[in-house]
């Protein structure tokens, strides 16, 4: 099977969906002229400047106009580039996209089919305002769906599902990117179905995006030491496939959640709480969390490494559940 980068896989997803449905369009900064490996590379040549809409420098306009166009019946894809920048459009994403259908009592069968593309993640020496992964912020707020693909395969299949969903989807991809096999034939990946990245019997680790890559390395290291780790990638946080996680915990009795976001009120806290509500008797050790210890992400690589999750930190957290 051919190998694609995450951006190439997303590019294919957008191209296929835009060919299939004339109501799909993309709005964002600097969508053309294309400069290489991006999700929107080359799309303007096929779909024109009206549907590949280069926006003024305003996340407010990018996200807010997507909401307005969705209310009027289109299916916008809002390219916000970095999650850090999308903070400029929180009213539009959290309150308008997330809450308008509910607040207006679904008047006129109101729907908001929008995809908000956001890049996340550190490990690139970019500093506190270019390195964030605010998954929990969006998960905390009602009305959104949240996709966090790890592989190019998942990125393509989930993005096609996101575009066809009648609800707003915040779609996070890690700025480190990835490459991997992607089939030529069309496929979609449903939301709310976790992928077991590695089967194991001793401990369950839940991770998303680049944290899956780090966790798989940690699991491989531990395998040599006789520890058999199961790695679960939920792929979407909303909806969350909690059943697969709970089933795994019933098997292993141990849970660690790895999250690149800040720890406090974070993804790990939420998944940990849900597992404790559903499977407390199965737990043989406290739930472990590996996340940013509530600090802005610093620039210098040794400092960044001190703050963000690492293979060593994940190994240590898994070991702590086994002692």
């Amino acid at each position, binding site marked *: 099977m051919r190998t694609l980068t995450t951006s190439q896989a997303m590019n294919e997803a957008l191209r296929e969906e835009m060919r299939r449905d004339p109501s799909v*369009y993309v*709005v964002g900064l600097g969508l053309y002229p294309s400069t290489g490996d991006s999700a929107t590379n080359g799309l303007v040549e096929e779909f024109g400047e*009206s*549907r590949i*809409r280069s*926006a*003024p420098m*305003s996340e*407010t*306009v990018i*996200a*807010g*106009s*997507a*909401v*307005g*166009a*969705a*209310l*009027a*019946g*289109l299916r*916008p894809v809002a390219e916000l580039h970095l999650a850090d920048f999308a903070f400029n459009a929180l*009213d*539009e994403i959290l*309150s*308008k996209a997330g809450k*308008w*259908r*509910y*607040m*207006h*009592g*679904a*008047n*006129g*069968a*109101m*729907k*908001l*089919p929008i995809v908000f593309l956001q890049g996340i993640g550190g490990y690139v020496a970019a500093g506190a305002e270019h390195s964030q992964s605010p998954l929990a912020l969006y998960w905390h707020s*009602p*009305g959104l*769906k949240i996709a966090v693909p790890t592989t190019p395969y998942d990125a393509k299949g989930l993005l096609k599902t996101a575009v066809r969903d*009648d*609800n707003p989807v915040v779609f996070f991809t890690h700025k480190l990117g990835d490459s991997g096999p992607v089939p030529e034939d069309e496929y979609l990946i449903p939301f709310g179905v976790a992928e077991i990245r590695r089967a194991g019997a001793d401990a369950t680790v839940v991770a998303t995006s680049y944290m899956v890559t780090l966790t798989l390395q940690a699991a491989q290291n531990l395998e040599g030491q006789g520890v058999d780790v199961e790695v679960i990638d939920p792929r979407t946080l909303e909806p969350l496939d909690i059943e697969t996680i709970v089933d795994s915990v019933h098997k292993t009795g141990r849970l660690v959640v790895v999250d690149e976001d800040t720890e406090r009120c974070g993804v790990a806290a939420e998944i940990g709480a849900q597992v404790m509500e559903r499977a407390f008797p199965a737990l043989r050790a406290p739930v472990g969390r590996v996340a940013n210890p509530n600090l802005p992400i610093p620039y210098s690589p040794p400092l960044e490494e001190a703050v963000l999750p690492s293979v060593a930190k994940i190994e240590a957290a898994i070991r702590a559940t086994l002692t």
Partner: protein
Amino acid sequence: MKPTPAEQLELYTLMVRSRVFEETAGALVVSGEIPGSWLSGIGQEGTLGAIHQLRPDDYLTYTHRGAYGFIGRGSDPKLLLAELLGKRTGYSRGKGGRHIADLEHGILGKSGTIGGHAPLAVGVATAIQIRGGDQVVMSIFGEGTSNRGTTHSSMNAAAVWGLPVVWVCENNGYMGNVPAPMYTAVMDIADMAVGYDMPGEVVDGNDVLAVHEAAEEAIARARAGQGPSLLELKTYRMRPFGETSTDLRDPAEATAWRAKDPIRRFRSALIESGVLTDGATVAISEAATAEMETARSYARDSSFPAPSDAFEDLYA
């Protein structure tokens, strides 16, 4: 083009219906039957001169103030009052209160944040442009909202993309009890149009025919694909900020503006030109009163939502 006598009568009737609706809603706030608030647009009904000209397939985004957007577009006062009373039969099934969408009439919802609707108007106009229609979006905002970055970003985007947006600023001179010079650098909001390369025009907002004339031009421009315009309607809120708010504005100023009440002015002009008779005036008012009493009864008689309804409507 001046509206025909029949159109003028229709416009006058809308203004009266809007005002009686607002008086009805205001009384229900004071009586406590509306559990939330109502922000009255009484005195600002001249804006109907612009709203009235929209086609049924056009769109409107509105501010936190006034009922004329709904009345002008043909919304049902029964469902409006039911919503304000928190009833299940309301436009938002009791979940929105003043946050009302009437998609059937091109009213796409109410932003809880002041100015939050401006980028949405850009998006609706984007949809029109991508589809290739000649509809327009009228986006109404207040002079206080002109302070918001959302407003400026949206005006810039609408101009850059050549979108069919008619920006209508109702300048009533106050943000709550704070006078405009304390928060806005220019006293004519229309001047801001220069920064976004679009026409900007100051209009006497209490002269409904002047509003009509200015809006006609702006709408025609938008329909013809010539891009956005900004109209500034100089007006005055004849009620406090909210129905139970304390009004700290100068009473003499309020009295002077009351003499310029847009409904009273239009009525005098219509009677003078023979379009309206004293008898017809009374009949229009009585019909509006009867309509809003019926709407109030409907709202009162409607059921509250069941607690389980709180768990519906989040996802499509």
